[in-house]
């Protein structure tokens, strides 16, 4: 199981180019992400991190390129892919409960006409339990805090039982407890053999969170094992010299999380 997974990449991207109007947002991306890693996508604002995830999921049209999930085109592998969008992408004043949002993760499996029943509600409750939100299952989503909303979104992806998860800035604007909790869950998933691909913006924590890293700024600046990629030269290339570094050559410490 593990050997076959490590042989075949969980995600492989060939010649992906995405443009917005006539401005290239992503240029000729070639990438293989091995299975069973926690991969971080890091880069400055406007580097195309979110766009990369969205184009992989077919949410943004690409000019060219091919995306394979576990060796097959994404369209054939939808059921093996889970997605956690940015929290700000939806209107949280929608009249519904946390449990209901999590149940939405099962709509794909249910097909066109079947309604979610007791079994689906049970699965959704289990997913909420995993993110320690079962007590708030029947709370209106508008009354949840930012961190709780993020956990609900995570639970909605968990319930899909996917093999590859895409997460778009799951740690943005959440409290420290939630960040801890999310990282713990993601690590548990990785240890269970899942692949996690996470857009991340906080350089301070990159080194501790991820074991595989993609440094992105329209093009691929560097990719591979986090230890090899998270180097000052690469970072300077990605962030264009605006990066302020303290400490000695290899142990990177950043003065603030918001490096632009």
């Amino acid at each position, binding site marked *: 199981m593990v050997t076959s997974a490590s042989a075949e990449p969980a995600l492989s991207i060939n010649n992906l180019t995405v443009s917005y109007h006539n401005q290239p947002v992503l240029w000729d991306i070639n990438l293989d992400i091995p299975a069973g890693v926690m991969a971080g996508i890091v880069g400055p604002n406007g580097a195309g991190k979110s766009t990369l995830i969205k184009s992989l999921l*077919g949410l943004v049209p690409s000019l060219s390129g091919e995306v394979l999930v576990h060796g097959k085109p994404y369209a054939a592998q939808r059921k093996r892919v889970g997605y956690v*969008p940015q929290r700000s992408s939806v*209107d949280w004043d*929608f009249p*519904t409960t946390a449990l209901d949002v999590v149940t*939405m993760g099962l709509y*794909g499996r249910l097909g066109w006409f079947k309604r979610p029943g007791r079994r689906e509600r049970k699965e959704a409750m289990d997913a909420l339990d995993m993110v320690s939100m079962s007590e708030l299952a029947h709370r209106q989503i508008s009354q949840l805090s930012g961190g709780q909303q993020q956990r609900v979104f995570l639970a909605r992806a968990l319930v899909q039982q996917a093999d590859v998860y895409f997460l778009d800035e799951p740690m943005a604007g959440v409290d420290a407890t939630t960040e801890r909790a999310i990282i713990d869950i993601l690590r548990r998933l990785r240890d269970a053999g899942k692949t996690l691909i996470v857009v991340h913006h906080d350089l301070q924590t990159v080194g501790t969170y991820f074991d595989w890293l993609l440094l992105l700024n329209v093009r691929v600046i560097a990719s591979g094992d986090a230890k090899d990629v998270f180097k000052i030269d690469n970072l300077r290339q990605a962030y264009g010299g605006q990066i302020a570094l303290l400490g000695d050559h290899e142990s990177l410490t950043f003065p603030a999380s918001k490096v632009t």
Partner: protein
Amino acid sequence: MQWLELLSDYTFQNVVIGASLLGLISGPLGCFAVLRRQSLLGDAISHAALPGICLSFIITGSRDIGGIMIGSLATGSLAALIMLLLTRKSRLKTDAGLGVCLSLFFAVGIVLLTYIQGTSNAAQGGLEAFLFGQAAATLRSDLWVMGGVTLVTLSLLAAFWKQAKLVTFDAEYARTLGMPATAIEATLTAMVALAVVVGLQMVGVILMAAMIVAPAAAARQWSRHLGTMLAIAAGVGIVSGVSGATISTLSRGLATGPLIVLTATAIVLLSLALAPGRGLLWGIMKHYLQKAELQKRQLLYTLYKHPARPASRRLSLSARLTLALLKRQGYLTRSQGEADWGLTTTGQAKARQVVATFEEVAP
């Protein structure tokens, strides 16, 4: 006696049934429009129905409701489509795109209307009634058509409930699950056009947007689930339809459509003010109660921590009120006239509680 007479009146029956059907369809579909932030799209669609009405009259030469519905559905959907294209492909923002579409189609409609009025066609009389609706002219046969449209639309909604809900909440996520989100969104928009078409006869093209937005806005205040929101919106739509129709029949000469809209708006205002949890009044009340409670605690805290400090001469009104309140509740005594406030034994105990919670929060 008067009521019995009223209920057996043929025109009144027609108007009430028509108004109820309108409420039944515009309420639920309006919910989706409002939640998808497309309330004004309903306005554009309904204004754009006018050229369709006129074109259908020019082509068929009659005011038959079937033709008029098809015509208005066509131009309404066309307007929505052009609006979406304008905002996607050009640099126009949504509101500007809506404004352009709405006025363009409405102007074309008015031009066609005056053109028809210029030709001496005997059947054209009253075509302008579609501007503000003419409920009294509703025929039994019209009701069958309206009922049919309502039934089909609502069953479609029930069948694709899951899809409609997820696409409304999070369209991109729906797409990752393999749902044809764009098609579902287009269908939901087309359904708004259907609701508009049903309301043409009752409230007319100009005020129809209110019937899309108002029941949904009112229902959002009272509901915690999408299903209940739809049900309440349908209820609000029916209630305002029926009461508007009744008021207009009882006071002869007042237009039905605008009265229906006014009733719906009144329900919206009441809901905005009074709905539990979300209502403005509760919000204001809660704010003041919390403020008073905080002030009370803060005073107790101060008096406990700094008992020797003489009270300042110029106390604010709210501070004086709070002091008086605390005295009435038995926490404070006032010795030696105006200046000195002191804690009673119960006041001491209460203050210790406050201090304890404060020290717990901020060590």
